């Protein structure tokens, strides 16, 4: 299949409309990134449950480097190289699921706020901004108004961020390192009967069973060569209707290192934009990601994301120190802990 690179333009419209490319694979050429400024944003999150209240700690960092032919010329961190933790106390009795949702959404909000601040202050000097993870957060199944409000806040900040990037001409993409999605495998299962003439040998296999058991990343690890991306796939996640500009999300897989699973790249595009523009933008971003991801045969995450991740990560020692501080300042701190943490011994 890899060598045949089937043409997808002959697919029936209900399938063809799901994708944004005519070919399954596109060969890319790592571009010369000298002169470009590429940024990465990532956030960290840690939490502890107590009786009657919960504590969250967040941190998000943006890092952007300007490249020259020799390598990095300058690296800037926002807000600082080692920003302090942002602490939040929730006084509502959250269920475990709500507690998880709250943490995830608030971390995403912190990341987007940092990204927005960077864009507002970058004065158009930033060319590409990469964010860690996927922008897709499904609406939480909860009755908690507080969490739903946070979710709305997230969508609103996300919309503003996408519009701001568009306005400033900054290309923005989300990088998903480890994905369990099977959108592409499902799609592949659907299109095989239509491209069967080109891949007759596949019929000798029980491909449905194989595809059913595969995830996108497993599949593309074998199908993609380094410097090759998959077709872009249309994800069911739209934003910004309130700004009269609807954006929809596209995802594709990109193989950066020969022995690493591919990364998934996701980016928003206006629904009014034509296909050629989108393909150009996808290829531009991909060809800029490749040089900053190709440093190790076994690992191919873009360097700005690796660096932002390292700075945003909340270490266990930081959390321990934080809670030690709370313990020192409160007269009866042990009453807050759940019984299992109060045991006078450790088995």
């Amino acid at each position, binding site marked *: 299949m890899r060598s045949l690179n089937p043409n997808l333009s002959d697919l029936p419209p209900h399938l063809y409309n799901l994708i944004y490319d005519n070919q399954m694979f596109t060969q890319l050429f790592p571009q010369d990134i000298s002169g470009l400024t590429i940024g990465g944003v990532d956030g960290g999150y840690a939490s502890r449950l107590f009786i009657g209240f919960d504590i969250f700690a967040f941190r998000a960092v943006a890092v952007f480097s300007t490249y020259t032919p020799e390598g990095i010329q300058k*690296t800037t961190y926002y807000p600082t190289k080692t920003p302090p933790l942002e602490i939040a106390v929730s006084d509502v009795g959250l269920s475990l699921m709500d507690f998880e949702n709250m943490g995830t959404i608030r971390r995403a909000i912190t990341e987007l706020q940092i990204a927005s601040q960077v864009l507002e202050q970058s004065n158009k000097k930033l060319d590409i901004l990469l964010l860690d993870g996927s922008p897709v957060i499904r609406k939480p199944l909860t009755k908690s108004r507080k969490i739903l409000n946070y979710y709305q806040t997230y969508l609103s900040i996300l919309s503003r961020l996408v519009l701001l990037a568009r306005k400033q001409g900054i290309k923005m993409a989300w990088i998903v390192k480890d994905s369990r999605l099977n959108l592409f495998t499902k799609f592949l299962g659907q299109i095989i009967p239509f491209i069967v003439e080109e891949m007759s040998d596949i019929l000798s296999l029980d491909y449905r069973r194989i595809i059913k058991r595969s995830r996108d990343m497993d599949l593309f690890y074998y199908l993609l060569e380094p410097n090759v991306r998959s077709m872009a796939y249309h994800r069911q996640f739209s934003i910004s209707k309130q700004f009269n500009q609807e954006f929809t999300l596209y995802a594709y897989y990109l193989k950066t290192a020969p022995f690493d699973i591919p990364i998934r790249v996701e980016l928003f595009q206006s629904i009014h934009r034509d296909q050629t523009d989108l393909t150009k933008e996808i290829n531009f971003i991909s060809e800029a990601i490749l*040089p900053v991801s*190709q*440093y190790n045969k076994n690992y191919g995450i873009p360097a700005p994301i690796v660096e932002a991740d390292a700075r945003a990560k909340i270490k266990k020692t930081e959390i321990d120190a934080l809670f030690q501080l709370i313990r020192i300042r409160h007269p009866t701190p042990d009453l807050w802990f759940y019984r299992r943490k109060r045991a006078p011994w450790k088995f």
Partner: protein
Amino acid sequence: MAAIGTVVATPDSPSLENIEFIIDKNAQPQIERGQFVTIPKNKNQVVLGIITSIKKYNAYYETIDSSIHEISSRNYEAIFPIKEWENTLANAKPLGEINFTNERITRLKFPVSPGSKIYVASSSIVSKFLGLDKNGIYWGDLSSNNVKIRVSLSRLLRKHLAILAISGAGKSYAASILLEELHKTGSISVLVIDPHGEYSSMVPTNVENTNTKVIRGSFISIGIPELSAWEISEFIPEISVVQTRVLDNIISNIRKKNRNHYGLQDIIQIIDTSEKINVRTKEALIGWLYSLQRTHLFSTETSPNLSELFQPGKIVILDLSEITNLRSRSIIVLHFLSRLYYQRTRGEIPPSLFVIEEAHQFCPQGSRSISKRIIETIAREGRKFYASLCLISQRPVNLSVTALSQCNTNLILRIRNPYDQDFIGKTSEGIDRSTLKMIPDLEIGEALLVGEGINYPTFFRIRSRTFYNKVTSPDLETMADKYKEAWSVKRNTS
């Protein structure tokens, strides 16, 4: 003064034994191992420490994988901001707590806090801690703390000094600094045993009245009339008590006849013609005395008269480079040291220092040497009579343990041999394992002073000579060319 770093919390730091700290990027050029640092505890107290190790850390290179799978055409540093995250960490060993109110230095009883700022220790604090004397012997500089290593003369020499290093590491240079300082102070007299003539060439020829007198080996003679039979027997370790008694009778008879101008040949003749002496004793005695005569050291008079030369501030160098025979050298060392030491015990000469180069030759461990007894005696008892030793050796392991262990101050330069290092560790008081490890890495001109003379083992750079000449030995090629030239002249002449 700006802080150079911040104390970090690790599983074993800060403790009473170790303080780990992260060095500020701007301060890195001024930090070095062996440097003294302070950590303020409050307004009146600081903790003093010494930097024992420095290491760089960068999480990007924490695992081997980060470099072995690198794609050759691209290196990490071109893609990642790696330099931004390179940190320098150092470990300091806490040495004590200094209280400015009562000016006392006490043992550290409680660790410093993580997050404490760390500073380069001021020269006054370091000088006080090391027990330096502003009027003492100026050996060199601890440049990282801007401290002049001035050691009290009394603390340095009362209990003897040893200078230990491999060949070419600067032992003689270090000793010449000591001589320069003693020359300046002009208080004690010094005898230098110089087997290779290194010191004699240092003495400036264009300066008159330098207080330094060089005596060449060829001008040295030992006057037989000054020696008793028992003293002569010390030059011949194999001589028996019976033979010594016979020799004593003969010398007594000569002296009874008021003869005070006789030599070895005279004694040999008397023994040879005597009919009272047993033939076997006679033959043995004549044999021993002939062996002494063959050294050409003995005469009817002693020269030079060291007692006269040994005035306060005088430095006498016995240049033994012309005497190649080790036995002859040992005889000279034994004779002059014995004479001077006993004169010192009777207060006839000023407090003295005996500098012995290649001390392992004259006072070896595990083998016999004519001069060993007197050196060990001075090492054991000299302190009471203000007679000090400065033993210089490139093979401490071959130097008498009795003598070396009495040298309470050691100046150690570079030593590579592990046996010697181990030996120094055993015989030097106050050297711990980490200090010992640093000795092989010392550069030329760097030294470690340890023991009675200084409160804490200290690495420093030996100062430049100001009075004695700089002597450099020519390289092998130059010497070969010189010989070739001389040889062709000789051939043409013949």
